[in-house]
């Protein structure tokens, strides 16, 4: 299958402080790609550089062959309209109702009339099971609901590439499993390509087709492959420990 997103030798840094380097990977169309690693290893930072919030220090990042960071800001915004992003805590705009949150991108970037927008908002909230909460404000709904509403908003412009930052963090196992089903269904239904940052193992094993494992100590990716492959076949002790939920070898020895 063809490559949609391609990352080559990316170095991420905040000023002089390097977060991650030598990141290289490709994401195939219609696949679910997982960015894994322990806390603080730079997973979310990598995601930020892929959605235009943080310019990488060096390296190349292409979307369908187009260099993402080489073009102008306006060009990047155009490319971003192909993206749907689900932020860690939903990031709903708190002064708008759930429905208005989903409607706003359509009002800003499409020619649709009010009635058509309302139908599409209902549909997208229907996908994530949030239709009854359409007229509520973000402060009136729970964290899990905020996340689902955030997902509906990410789908607002029918993006073909979706980015999820810790979609199941803070959710109970049942809600989290439902969210996994939802992600799979959306991928199969819409044919979307999905990049997911997570350390929720059960969900990664279920949904991700391929992935990359970032290491905080060496500041480099230390393994490539699908989560299930990494669990069963990876030789690296740290990856093995992470994927099998055992403690690190070093930690075990006194």
């Amino acid at each position, binding site marked *: 299958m063809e490559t949609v997103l391609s990352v080559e030798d990316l170095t991420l840094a905040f000023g002089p402080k390097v977060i991650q380097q030598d990141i290289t990977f490709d994401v195939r169309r219609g696949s679910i790609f997982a960015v894994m690693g322990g806390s603080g290893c730079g997973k979310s930072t990598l995601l930020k550089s892929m959605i235009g919030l943080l310019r990488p220090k060096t390296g190349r990042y292409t979307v369908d062959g187009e260099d993402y960071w080489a073009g102008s800001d306006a060009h990047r915004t155009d490319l971003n309209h192909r993206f749907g992003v689900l932020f860690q805590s939903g990031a709903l705009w708190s002064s708008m109702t759930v429905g208005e949150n989903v409607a706003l991108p359509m009002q800003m970037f499409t020619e649709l009339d009010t009635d058509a927008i309302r*139908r599409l908002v*209902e549909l*997208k909230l*229907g996908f994530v099971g949030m239709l009854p909460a359409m007229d509520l404000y973000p*402060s009136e709904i729970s964290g899990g609901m905020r996340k689902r509403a955030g997902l509906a908003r990410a*789908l607002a412009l029918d993006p073909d590439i979706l980015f999820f930052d810790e979609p199941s963090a803070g959710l109970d196992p049942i809600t989290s499993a439902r969210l996994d089903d939802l992600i799979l*269904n959306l991928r*199969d239904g*819409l044919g979307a390509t999905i990049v997911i940052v997570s350390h929720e193992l059960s969900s990664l094993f279920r949904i991700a087709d391929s992935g990359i494992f970032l290491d905080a100590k060496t500041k480099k990716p230390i393994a490539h492959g699908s989560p299930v492959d990494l669990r069963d076949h990876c030789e690296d002790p740290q990856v093995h420990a992470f994927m099998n939920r055992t403690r690190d070898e070093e930690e075990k020895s006194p």
Partner: protein
Amino acid sequence: MSPLPDAHVDIPHWELQNNTGSVTVVLSGTWLARTADIPRFPDDSFLQRRGDSGTLEFNTQAVQSWDTGLIAFIWEVTRAAKDAGLHTSLEQLPAPMRKLMELLPDTIASPAPVAPRPKLLETIGSGSINGLAEIGTVTELTVEVIKNGCLTLVGRGRMRGVDLLNDTVDAGPSALLIVGVVNLLVGAILAFVGASQLQKFAAGIYVAALVGIATVREMAAVMTAIIMAGRTGGAYAARISTMQGNEEIDALRVFGIPVSTYLILPSVLSLTITMPFLYLYGCVIGMFGGFLVATAMLDLTPAGYFHATISAFGVGQFLFGFVKSIVFGAFIGLTSCRIGLKAGRSASDVGIAATRAVVVGIVGVILIDAIFAVVANAVGI
């Protein structure tokens, strides 16, 4: 229904095929929500089938490309079919469409009924109760702050000195420039107004007394308090309501750290400490502003102006303004903290709290000033 368009025509098109025992919705064209106008499905299309327990089927073979626009349409059709008592079969749909359809509920629940508007009497009643409760809460808070303040004075409180220091620096030295500029201009404006009137009576020298008394009794205290309400009161309210949103206040409560000692006391104390000094500073600057204008506009000697100012008011006037500014400081600190604590948890609530703190601060300062004026008049200061 119009005939099926040619396959290469891109507009989204649908038609109903009535068969015995089933209805087929035949879809064709491009069904992209963003580029094409997705038609609406008329709700009465299944009218003639009502009561007939048939099956609804879909034929999407002639659809060229689609996105959620098509799904929105199919969803509308299935809902209309359910209302008409038809059984919907999604078997003919391609797997991607079917997966998306499976996510959707088969009805849209009617929106929750809007709560009826409360009656006038109810509004007045609940408003009064809320007002009384608010007075109680603020009083309670005041008592607690005073109690904790006394405990801190004897060394048994748990306020962090560094918080008080930070707040005091922020409410004092950092405010010198703006307080100075405003008071200088107010003094100058008073002198302008006074000079233009008093000159007519050849009483130009009384400009000094006018500026001096107005500044010391009213202007320096009130202007400084208004600036501090906008500058520091708004900041306190925003800070505390942001902490509310981050669950920081909840964390303090769970640890049993009294919010009144930890958060409110340093804020109130710092304003109460700095306000009288800012007042004195404002007095000096204000009179200097008057001096500049008076000596430039009228033929007054600097020494003469100085003497006229000194002899215009006594220590009592100073004391009056000094006490007033202490009350203003405590009032602004307490109300802005209370408003911050009461705020909601969203981003817009922070803005509302900051605005409210500024408005309540300014209006309250002027109200208190009016009360002081009445009392002073009765007592004869």
